[in-house]
Structure formats: C-alpha cells, structure tokens
C-alpha cells in the first residue's frame, strides 16, 4: 500500500497541472461558445451554440466535484431551455430576419462594449485581487456527494418548501398560458365574454330613445 501512496504523492503535481489544463480548455470553450451564441448571424445556430456552452459549463461543475449539479445543468439548460428557445425561434419566423443583427448606429455598440468591458474589468479585477483564502473558514470542508442524502434533504426535511416553490413556478407557467389565451380571446369577437373578457354593451336602445327625444323637441319648437 505504501508504494501506491508514494506514487500518488509523486504524481500530484502532474495531476494538478492536468486539472489546470482542463480548466483552461473548458474556459476557452465556454467563452468562445458564449461569444458565438451572441454574434453568430444565424439565430438557430446561435441557440445551438448556447446549448453547447451550457454543456461546457457543466464541465466546470464536474471539475468542481459537483456531478449532480452538472447533470441538472445539462438536463435543464441544454435539454430544456435550448429546446424552448428553438421552439420560440420556430414560432417567431421574424426572429430569423438578418436585418435585426445590424446596428442602427455604431454608438450603441460602442457603449455596450464599454459597459460590458467595465463590468468584466472591475469584477474580474476584484476576483483576482481579493484575498479569498483568508475569508474561507479553516477546517475540513463539508462535501456532500450522496444523491440519496440530497433527496432526503429535499423531500423529507424541506418537502413543504419545495412544494411551495413548485406551486409558484406552476403559477408562473399557468399565468403565461393565460396571458396568451387572454390576448387570443380579445382578438376573436365570437367568443367575447369568455376568458374573463367583458362583453360589450349594445348601444342600439339608447340611440332609439335619443331619436324620439329629438323628434319631440322639434315638434314642440314648431308649435
């Protein structure tokens, strides 16, 4: 057993170097894909690049020893949100209009570049300068990798809160569908009165009484 431990100790610098290489590879991939997702001319390709970028971010989570979060990231972002945006693009054919990608003025682009550059410079500089190791408490870090433990924490210990949050998310989705239905109901006059849209009052009886009143007044004036 000793030779195994000794071999691992000898190999540790190589493993560290390999981890750093993996980090730089994933970082370059993520940033390049994020740029392509924003700048590629074809919006369908841009959405695909966004999905690949989300998968690459899951690589960071694997590097951080968080495999369950990586799985969630791939399932929700790559599998769910990317597919949702693709459906959105298919429902909105005008989104594929390439004229939307050109800028009316160069001023807006310059301003956006400066603002995002300032955000990146300030936050990145602070991340590099700030003494993070001093802020982290010493001791054995608490690493919980048990999926069963996480499931028990979620559903046994905090099940009520999870269900409340699920209800809030469900309400959001039902509200989104209701918004679409409301607008559709307003556009269709044949079903006016349903979906909470008030029926329009018919103005005909009021118009008749007004006509009678004016006839009577004209007769009185002639007499």
């Amino acid at each position, binding site marked *: 057993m000793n030779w195994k431990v000794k071999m691992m100790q000898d190999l540790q610098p190589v493993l560290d170097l390999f981890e750093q290489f993996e980090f730089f590879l994933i970082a370059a991939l993520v940033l390049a894909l994020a740029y392509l997702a924003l700048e590629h001319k074809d919006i369908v390709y841009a959405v695909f690049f966004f999905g690949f970028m989300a998968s690459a971010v899951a690589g960071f989570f694997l590097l951080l020893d968080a495999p369950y979060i990586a799985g969630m990231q791939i399932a929700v972002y790559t599998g769910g*949100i990317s597919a949702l945006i693709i459906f959105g693009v298919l429902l909105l054919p005008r989104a594929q209009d390439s004229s939307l990608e050109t800028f009316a003025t160069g001023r807006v682009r310059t301003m956006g570049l400066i603002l995002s550059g300032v955000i990146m410079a300030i936050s990145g500089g602070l991340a590099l300068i700030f003494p993070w190791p001093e802020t982290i408490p010493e001791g054995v870090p608490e690493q919980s990798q048990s999926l069963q433990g996480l499931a028990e924490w979620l559903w046994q210990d905090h099940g009520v809160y999870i269900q409340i949050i699920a209800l809030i998310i469900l309400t959001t989705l039902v509200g989104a569908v209701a918004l679409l239905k409301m607008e559709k109901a307003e556009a269709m006059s044949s079903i006016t009165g349903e979906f909470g849209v008030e029926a329009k009052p018919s103005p005909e009886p009021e118009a008749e009484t007004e006509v009678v009143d004016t006839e009577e007044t004209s007769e009185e004036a002639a007499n």
Partner: protein
Amino acid sequence: MVPLSWYLVVAFMLVGLGAYGMIVKKNLIRILIGAEIMGNGVNLALVAFAVYGGAFSFTAQGLIILVISVAAAHTALALVLMLMYNRRYGTVDLSIVQKEEVA
C-alpha cells in the same frame, strides 16, 4: 488545485458577455440568450463559492437546483411575452418600442 479566483474570473466574464448581449442587441431572442449566459455565470460563481468555501452541503446544492429550475420557468415566461410582443408589433425588434417612446 485551480484557485477560486480563476473560476470567478470566468464567471464574471460570462456575466459581462451576457450584459453586452443584453445592452447591444435588438433581437429579443438574442437578449434572452444574453440573460441566460449571465445566469450561467452566476451559477458557476455560486457553485465555486460553495465548494471552495467548505459549504458544499445539501443547502447549497438545493439552492443551485432551485436557481436552475426558476431559470427554466422564467425562460418560458419570457418566450410567451415575446409571442405577445410579436402579435402586437409584428416583429421581435426591440428598437421599435424605443423609437415610439422617443416620438
């Protein structure tokens, strides 16, 4: 081991790229993609802090799962709002509203 600050730099670069997309672009789908890229950067910072801060407990994992789930819900809501915008203005160009406000 890779230092925490490296992860944070990548996370903040993602936030900056997302902010660039949200400021500069006028296509609503691009703006949504920019918002999602920002969300990814925030998630990365959250996980990195939890792991390096010695608190990658069930609480941290539950919080991150919650953030990812809410991101999916808000994307669906954003797409519905885009459909409504398209019905009203006949396009997904955000600059039309800005021009109307100026006029």
